[in-house]
């Protein structure tokens, strides 16, 4: 499907919640330099997929390898981050009592052991990196404001920026544009395209227009399994997908807009 090498490969992973299989023997792959969307009906296991990759949930069976050599299933959350996987959660979770700048400061790629944090001093280089990132997300003038005082969309960007500051090989985003205005969506989409030039981005999203505009690859999940994978065009044509997800979704969206 793509010439790019795999960043992440899962083999028959299963995630269970007290017997219920939220993910069921899933084989899955994410490639470098790819914007990879995961879609599917509510409860399909999309968030759980991100959880099991970043260590927030544990697989009861199967393996996940990262960059062909690291087995993620046995690593702690912080080790996984240091290997190069960063996650943005669905609800914005910036640190409200720190400034925008300080949020980026603690997120930034660095040794995060107690020892090195105790010794850490802001270097010129680090400061430059932080300033560049503020520029990229357009929050330069908000630098010294507390993150809690930002608008919703700005918080989302700050959080994406915090993920990027870790210079990961794989970025995981859970519904990044939820609650954003039209312009903000476009800006976020552009940002995603830009960051995927150097790394893989895996995004869970319900907004099909957004997926259409920015996806390289789309995976459709259903009941913890992979239903279909391909380009957005193929996905939209596939009868199975139309039956369990897109067909229903059109109805649901129509209902919403109808009222």
């Amino acid at each position: 499907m793509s010439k790019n090498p795999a960043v992440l490969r899962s083999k028959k992973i299963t995630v269970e919640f007290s017997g219920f299989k939220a993910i069921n023997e899933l084989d899955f792959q994410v490639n470098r330099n790819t914007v990879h969307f995961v879609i599917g009906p509510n409860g399909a296991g999309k968030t759980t997929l991100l959880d099991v990759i970043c260590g927030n949930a544990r697989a009861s069976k199967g393996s996940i390898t990262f960059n062909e050599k690291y087995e993620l299933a046995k690593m702690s959350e912080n080790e996984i981050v240091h290997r190069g996987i960063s996650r943005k959660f669905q609800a914005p979770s910036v640190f409200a009592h720190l400034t925008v700048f300080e949020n980026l400061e603690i997120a930034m790629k660095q040794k995060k052991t107690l020892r090195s944090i105790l010794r850490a001093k802001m270097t010129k280089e680090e400061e430059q990196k932080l300033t560049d990132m503020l520029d990229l997300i357009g929050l330069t003038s908000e630098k010294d404001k507390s993150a809690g005082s930002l608008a919703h969309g700005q918080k989302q960007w700050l959080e994406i920026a915090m993920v990027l500051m870790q210079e990961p090989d794989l970025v995981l985003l859970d519904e990044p544009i939820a609650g954003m205005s039209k312009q903000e969506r476009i800006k976020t989409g552009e940002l995603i395209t830009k960051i995927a030039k150097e790394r893989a981005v895996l995004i869970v999203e319900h907004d099909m227009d957004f997926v259409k505009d920015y996806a390289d690859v789309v995976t459709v999940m259903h009941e913890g399994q992979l239903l279909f994978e391909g380009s957005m065009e193929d996905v939209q044509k596939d009868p199975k997908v139309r039956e369990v997800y897109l067909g229903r979704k059109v109805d649901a969206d129509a209902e919403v807009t109808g009222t």
Partner: protein
Amino acid sequence: MQNRIYQSVFSRKIVFSLILLILLLAPLFLSDFRLNLLGKFLAFAILAIGLDLLWGYTGVLSLGHGIFFGLGAYAMAMYLKLEATGGKLPDFMAWSGIQELPLIWIPFQYPILAIILGILIPACLALFLGYLTFRNRINGVYFTILSQALVLVIVTLFIGQQNLTGGTSGLTNFSTFFGFQINSATTQTVIYFVTVVALVLVFLGCKKLVKGRLGRVLVGVRDGENRMRFLGYNPSTYKTFVYTISGAIAGLAGMLFVLQVGIISPTMIGIVPSIEMVLWVALGGRGTLIGPVIGAVFINAAKTGFSESYPDYWTYFLGALFVIVVVFLPKGIMGLVEKLKERWNKVDVKESSSVEIEKNYS
């Protein structure tokens, strides 16, 4: 904006120097008795700083700091007791038929070693407990409950092991410290100055910690422990570290307390004092370091005032104070100061703008 930040830093420095000056000059205008009381309050204030580092900055509420305080206090008291008996067995041991100095008392014959242990033992206990609980992700309320259980266990142990600890009556009747008469006004004044120096060092040390990148990481752990994991931090390491530091600081405070009060007993390190300690921090203002110092001194001064005139009402006052702080002053005295400052600044702005308007009209 820039200017205002600068100003507030500037005025903080002034406030800090003023307080320090008053503390250093206190022996000139306080009676020996009052100076001794103030010294005791300052010992409490030292503990409060450590507790604020843990609770205010890292978000870990310990209701068991009386124990760390107590371990420091007992370490010092054991040394003082041995010096008072001149190497012989303390009286309560002789009464319970012990012939030889028990093994755990032996290191406390040496003052320097006793002082080191007075800090090291509480620090190690905190390190051990913190490692076990935080690594197993026992957090929030569960940790707080555990910290209370710790108090119960240790206090029961101290009362039960009468022949080792002096039981409920604790350790008292000291005579000398490094050979100096401990109750003499001169010795007490020197100990007072030592306490002031310790307070300043602990304060500046903690300030330095929270001013650095560590301070931001601790706030992160406080406000979003799980989030910090996904930024690549291991929060339990940080919590254990701060818990250990604050345990050590509490031990130091305990030693200074015994030197000035001359007695330590299980009731002074139990549940009620442990809760009072948290109240000092809450009243002064969490996460400010200076607030808890003010809180500790204020509450204990009030306590002394009350027990001099209305001994029965202290508990009611404490209860009422607790309610007032929780309901009206969630950010404590420092929060109030901050609010007043803001209002002050606003008034400033208004005045200057009204001046401008007048100019325009004239």
